């Protein structure tokens, strides 16, 4: 990532909400976090930041011309339609056991997330 660009972290409240959602959803769907939990941490920070800024956890692994319109359309609000219909998550947050990047964890702590995402910010 760029050495000069410093992305903003989400609020603690929404990060915790997304963390709990992700743990529950992984267990319910029989999916696992990435074997590299740093990837999981970054995605959860992105989802929570979108929830802060736009009211819904829009997927952080897409480019949108208009984020407000996308939130209203709901297709890419996590869990997105491809995930709900086919258990496909190109963000590598929820992986089926046979996915090459799948780990064995369905849990991640708040501290684990911030330990990773603090590396990218100044705050």
């Amino acid at each position: 990532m760029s050495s000069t660009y410093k992305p903003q972290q989400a609020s603690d409240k929404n990060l915790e909400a997304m963390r709990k959602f992700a743990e529950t959803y992984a267990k319910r769907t029989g999916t696992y976090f990435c074997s590299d939990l740093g990837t999981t941490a970054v995605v959860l920070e992105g989802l929570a930041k979108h929830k802060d800024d736009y009211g819904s956890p829009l997927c952080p692994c897409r480019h949108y011309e208009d984020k407000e319109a996308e939130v209203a359309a709901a297709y890419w609000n996590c869990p997105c339609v491809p995930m709900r219909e086919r258990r496909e998550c190109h963000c590598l947050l929820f992986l089926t056991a046979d996915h090459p990047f799948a780990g064995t964890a369905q849990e991640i702590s708040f501290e684990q997330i911030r330990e990773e995402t603090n590396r990218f910010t100044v705050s």
Partner: protein
Amino acid sequence: MSSALSVTDATFEEEVLNSDIPVLVDFWAPWCGPCRMVAPVVDEIANEYEGRVKVVKVNTDENSKVATDFGIRSIPTLMIFKGGQKVDILVGAVPKTKIEATLEQFL
């Protein structure tokens, strides 16, 4: 030691479209998990292909115009440009061997 240069809406034409050698562009966003996996691979490629391929990255959150103009949807997306034209595209956390094999076609 070389690593991928950051390109913006303002510098894209000069750095990418007007380049004399093929360009690999990494479209990424800050809180995109798979982008974080691809970034070090892209930096390695910048070193290995120095002088033969120019490697740059575009933060799509900060440079929405370029990302939209080139139809970026899923990120990370890697695009290869040659002679000012988009010649290939790789979407997602693709392995290094796939990126190399794709690049070789345009050298």
